[in-house]
């Protein structure tokens, strides 16, 4: 884990949304970093802030959303401070993203080849012919059969798996240093998922990319990631290597998630259950956000949000079972004295 290999570092990121009913703290203090040739998995249940984290990095938030605190350092440059035109140059060039539903991210009226060629022309000074040639090469790289012919197809003429390959081709068109893949295989069948994951792994080796892989599927994380963060309700609750997270999970939420996966070992048995549901963004509990569902909750838990505490070997968890530290400013206040300072 050389420091110079670090591609992206996110520190204290907060992204909130303004809505009619109040503010949604979709991402509320998130820290992580990704190194060259490595994959960081972000795992957590629906609504915990995985997509908002990636959209914040790309600076592609919807209008009502804003990153109000923190730094997003791409090789040392803070993306949050860049003017929009510089950010546009970075998007697709240094950092690319692939989304869950390739159909909505491809334009239906242009052929797949035209769209990839256009992406190349936007970032590289090449003529049409060269762009077209590179497009065919990219299609081959991502394993699209009969690439010369497939570039002339419209998105609807391809299967879901092939469309996702086109998206990956587009994302790779400028040799990004960082690829963000937000649920890249969730809409696909398992056999096609296996093809796409294999493809991503191969390309990463070849190009030494850093990858952020977002998924709610712990199996996909275990197979693809070297480093993992677990998110819950907008916060990182645990961070470690994939072995640490799967073999020695510290946070009760991570433990609960891992124990609720069905499969061979659970046949004929009751599955572990995490009681209750994820809290509504307008109705967050005081202190540790997991407390109402946590089997180990004790009197300290509702008093403040626990800080991420290192338990050795950079394996960190935000839980009072492992220490007393809490995030400053998250203390539950008995009376509204918050505007005092």
């Amino acid at each position: 884990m050389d420091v110079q290999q670090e591609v992206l570092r996110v520190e204290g990121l907060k992204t909130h949304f303004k809505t009619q009913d109040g503010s949604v703290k979709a991402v509320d203090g998130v820290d992580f970093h990704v190194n060259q040739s490595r994959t960081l998995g972000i795992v957590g249940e629906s609504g915990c802030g995985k997509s908002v984290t990636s959209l914040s990095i790309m600076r592609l938030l919807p209008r009502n959303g804003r990153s109000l605190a923190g730094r997003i350092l791409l090789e040392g440059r803070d993306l949050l401070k860049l003017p929009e035109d510089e950010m546009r140059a970075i998007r697709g060039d240094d950092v690319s993203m692939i989304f869950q539903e390739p159909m909505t991210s491809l334009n239906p009226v242009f052929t797949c080849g035209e769209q990839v060629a256009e992406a190349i022309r936007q970032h590289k000074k090449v003529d049409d012919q060269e762009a077209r040639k590179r497009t065919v090469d990219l299609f081959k790289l991502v394993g699209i059969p009969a690439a010369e012919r497939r570039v002339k197809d419209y998105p609807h003429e391809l299967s879901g798996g092939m469309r996702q390959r086109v998206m990956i081709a587009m994302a790779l068109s400028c040799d990004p240093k960082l690829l963000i893949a937000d649920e890249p295989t969730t809409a696909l069948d398992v056999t096609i998922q296996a093809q796409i994951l294999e493809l991503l792994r191969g390309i990463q080796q070849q190009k030494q990319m850093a990858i952020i892989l977002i998924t709610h599927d712990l199996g996909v994380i275990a197979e693809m990631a070297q480093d993992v963060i677990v998110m819950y309700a907008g916060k990182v609750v645990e961070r470690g290597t994939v072995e640490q997270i799967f073999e020695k999970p510290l946070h009760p939420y991570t433990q609960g998630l891992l124990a609720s996966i069905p499969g061979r070992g659970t046949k004929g048995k009751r599955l572990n259950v995490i009681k209750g549901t994820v809290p509504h963004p307008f109705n967050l509990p005081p202190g540790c956000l997991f407390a109402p569902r946590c089997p180990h909750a004790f009197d300290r838990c509702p008093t403040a949000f626990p800080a991420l505490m290192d338990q050795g070997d950079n394996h960190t968890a935000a839980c009072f079972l492992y220490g007393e530290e809490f995030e400053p400013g998250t203390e539950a206040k008995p009376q509204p004295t918050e505007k005092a300072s």
Partner: protein
Amino acid sequence: MSVGATPAAGDGKPLVRVQNLVKYFPLRGGILQRTVAEVKAVDDVTFDVRAGEVFGLVGESGCGKTTTGRLLLRLIEPTSGTVEFDGRDLTKMKSDELKKTRSDMQIVFQDPYASLNPRLPIGEIIGEGLSNMGVRDRHQREERVAAILDKVGLRRYYINRYPHEFSGGQRQRIGLARALVLEPKFVVADEPVSALDVSIQSQVLNLMADLKDELQLTYLFISHNLSVVEHISDRVGVMYLGKLVEMSSTEDLFKNPKHPYTKFLLSAIPKPDPRQHRQRLILSGDVPSPINPPTGCRFHTRCPIAQFPICSEQQPAFELKSTGHWAACHFAEQTKELEKESGFVAPAIEAVDEEAAAIGQAERSAASEPEDVLESELDEEARRRSSEPLGGE
């Protein structure tokens, strides 16, 4: 088709008996809206669901799972074939008898959002079936709705609330309550937990298991998630392009899969164990179109051990291969040898495996005339590439 005994005959009393079931959906076109083609959604499927068991039905998108489930309840009419429920042929029933039988058979849908009428309070959604079955007394109806709400773990006072006020997991409980209020014997659960997060999924799976024991239910459990199916099912059927290709006890299927397609499916499941970086078998290409499925064995365009011309010319029968274990493959007994021959199973190093798989691919493509629409246009070089995710550059 198999001769003599039907799959599953002999042990355990069948509650639902499906024989040579076929469903073709017509595709219309032109100004006259004539049938121009047919989608062969379910094509000659035979199996039993035994009383008291959970029968899991797996397979990839579009292979015909939902269509099979709907045919079993006669929510759609079969093109041919029969479905017997409790010894009576559903496909020949007149509407009166069918209506009566229907209260014994219910369905739970995948999407807990789309399947509940947003304008009705959940008490009415759940009670609707009761009024249809002639429970006219309002008080009696409410009593039964309240009782089933208890069973699925929802509070009685929710009865007047609307679906949008509930979370995904709660809505799926409402869907279960609606299905179970009529006290059915048989429930088709079509992807009942696919839209749920893992922590909620486990709540609903436990609930389904409890209710099954308590109410002595039989489930047809449809899912594309093999881990979920392994957890809950007693027996499993695997579908590919409208055909049942394998069926056996869950344990046997997951330990000793006999059909090459099943092996791929099992190998594709991502395992939540980072140390187990297994040798993965990657199936190349896409599922061919059900409008014009491959001749012979429908899997032959992707099968690494396909032997030609037999596999592209002769449909393999769905036969008993060992006790309680059915498969439709000409070479189910010889898969091991053929796999070795074709380089399908390779040494434990990934890179080597890719190469070996690629060679296997090239070999079979040289030997075959692929029917797959997408792949039929490919030259050998492109086929080789498609099986080589790295492209080799």
